[in-house]
């Protein structure tokens, strides 16, 4: 009996909801098309989902510390356009440009973080402003349309992989990078930094009074988000090449993914693993809609309804007094 209750409690835990949803979505995909789980097609799915998963990890750090980063979509777009313009098809420029991109990602994160923490501007406004600045600056710089092209070696990360693997076919580099960064994010949340970040989002005042450097960790969270957008930019640019629309609307998709993972807007609750699972659920939903040949015009509505239902379900579980208080307490995983 206790065991059954424990299981029930675990299932209604907001973090667990996303994993249940993940299973449901993929069960539905499997029902529609069993061939989806064949090695190569699963690998293709993960290759294409990797950028969103990495972005979700970056966004998680910001959200759990009590902020938002709306600038990631524009930053992904900016990074791809910058890469194309600077590389301009020259293989030899690939590595230097990757360094420039990383520095640019850090700089954008730092500016977001410092304006939010030092100037006390709400992050919603800071990053919305940054979104517009990046969007406008890139269009000013390129005259409205991206120029140049990416080199083949730049595109390797997003497009290629370890070839001729038995059963799986190709293990995409994007997947390798995703797993490495995902593991890094999980480990990071177990460090002192992770705990302070969580505390800052949960109760800023209490955290500050107990001696935590709230502003420092929050700023670092923005830098991590900027870096995740840089990696996502490298992967998306590598996957599909340059287009004027790269990154459009990604900030909303990724915040959706994080919230779907049970991470509470306002901070202090949720796990990074669940946030990344949220990204997989979103990508899985897109795949499912595609398999079902659902009319394109209906998809956003169905997607929205599913997400509201999932978050409401998780919130209900959270709001109900739970006998064993442990289930409601957040533990970073």
């Amino acid at each position, binding site marked *: 009996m206790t065991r059954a209750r424990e299981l029930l409690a675990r299932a209604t835990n907001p973090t667990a909801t996303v994993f249940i949803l993940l299973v449901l979505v993929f069960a539905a995909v499997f029902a529609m*098309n069993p*061939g*989806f789980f064949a090695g*190569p*097609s699963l690998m*293709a799915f993960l290759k*294409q989902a990797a*950028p969103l998963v990495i972005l979700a990890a970056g966004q998680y750090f910001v959200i759990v510390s009590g902020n938002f980063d709306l600038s990631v979509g524009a930053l992904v777009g900016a990074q791809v356009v910058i890469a194309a313009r600077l590389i301009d098809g020259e293989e030899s420029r690939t590595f230097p440009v990757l360094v420039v991109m990383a520095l640019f990602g850090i700089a954008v994160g730092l500016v977001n973080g410092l304006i939010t923490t030092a100037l006390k501007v709400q992050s919603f406004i800071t990053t919305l402003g940054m979104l517009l600045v990046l969007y406008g600056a890139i269009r000013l710089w*390129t*005259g*409205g*349309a*991206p*120029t*140049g*092209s990416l080199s083949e070696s730049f595109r390797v990360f997003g*497009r290629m992989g370890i070839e001729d693997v038995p059963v799986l076919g190709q293990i995409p580099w994007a997947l390798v990078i995703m797993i490495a960064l995902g593991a890094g994010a999980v480990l990071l949340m177990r460090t002192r930094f992770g705990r302070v970040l969580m505390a800052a989002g949960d109760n800023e005042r209490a955290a500050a009074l107990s001696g935590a450097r709230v502003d420092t960790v929050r700023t670092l969270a923005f830098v991590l988000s900027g870096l995740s957008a840089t990696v996502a930019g490298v992967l*998306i640019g590598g*996957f*599909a*090449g*340059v*287009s*004027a*629309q*790269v990154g*459009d*609307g990604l900030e*909303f*998709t990724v*915040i*959706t993914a994080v*919230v*779907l993972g049970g991470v*509470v*807007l*306002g901070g202090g609750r949720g796990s990074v693993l669940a946030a990344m699972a949220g990204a997989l659920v979103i990508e899985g939903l*897109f*795949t499912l809609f*595609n*398999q079902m*040949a659902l009319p*394109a*015009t209906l*998809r*956003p509505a169905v*997607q*929205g309804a599913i*997400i*509201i239902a999932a*978050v*409401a379900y*998780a*919130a*209900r579980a*959270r*709001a109900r007094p739970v006998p064993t208080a442990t289930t409601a307490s957040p533990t970073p995983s």
Partner: protein
Amino acid sequence: MRTTRIAAAAAASLGILLATACTTDTPTDEADDATTETESGDEWFVQADYDEQLAQRDIEPEGDPAAPWLQAIEPEWVDTAAFAQEGGDATVCFSNASVSNPWRVTGWITMQQQVEVLQAEGKIGEFRHSDAGDDDDQQISDIQAFVDSGDCDALIISPSTTATLTPAVETACESGVPVIVFDRGVNTDCAVTFIHPIGGYAFGADAAEFLVDNLEPGDKVLALRILPGVDVLENRWAAATEVFAGSELEILGDEFTGGDAAEIKNIVTQYLQRGDVDGIWMDAGDGAVAAIEAFEDAGKPYPVMTGEDELSFMRKWQETGMTALAPVYSNFQWRTPVIAATMILAGEQVPAEWVLPQEPITEADRDQYLEVNADMPSLHYAKFGGEDLPGFPDAWQDR
């Protein structure tokens, strides 16, 4: 405590609501005409317009084939003596809907280059322009400002949407200034001339007919579309549906991609996982290369494909030697309005509806266009029609 949690959940739901509202339809439409209305299906198909546009493809346009931007299909000439002016210092004003996509950026550069030539020839004096950034209200006030200033001797308008801009165009006409409308239309014929290529039905039908001719009965075609609700894009698809209905091709689906390369590659990859795709129909060329790469990465043979005259697609087409066609929504139309303005101010006749030719680029003339545009960026349009302008090629390279 409980209340705050509920509040937090409510805030989260609201955030999600906002999020889903914004993810899918960022209006990065390919260029052309954008009457964003909510109608769908048959609302977008007018048999008479379809028949007219398909017929116009076969009509020899009047004028010099070397200067297609001055050619006109079955023009009805109107007298403009009433607008004739002495001297060459006329002020020409231009209210632009936006330069929010590569097609419009390319055209806008061409127009500025044409203006420089006309200024050097002493045909026009000052050239003023405003950019409404795809905002109807902004464009209405831009037009009003031009009218109120009283400085414009001719007013060129590229409307952002059809219905909403109609009253503003009418107001401009009533002020007595000759008005020139181009690209997207308005619901009034008060303008002296309305300049546009044949149109969306012709574009869609050119592409669909090519697939029907180059594929076997029973072959499978995937349609990739930018976004719903934009009239010229809907017209392209309506025409294609009409052509496909009379063929034995199987249409696997029509997917909206927002013109995003990553989205296009995802969708095509997923279709390829489920089975073969023999043909790709696109309503605009944005991201066409990503679709081709999806075939490469999946190890599948190249499809028969229609894109657009955007260079990235044409270069990939040449490189792979695949069977393809580049339908064209004539970008050179951006030259015509300023020339029309000088004609009107000189009292010369212009066509009331100036229908420009719109011919797809085939494999036969592909290499020639690529050679002329060899130094152009990949998001440039082959039929931009500015090769003879003095700023060529630097002005288009340095964007």
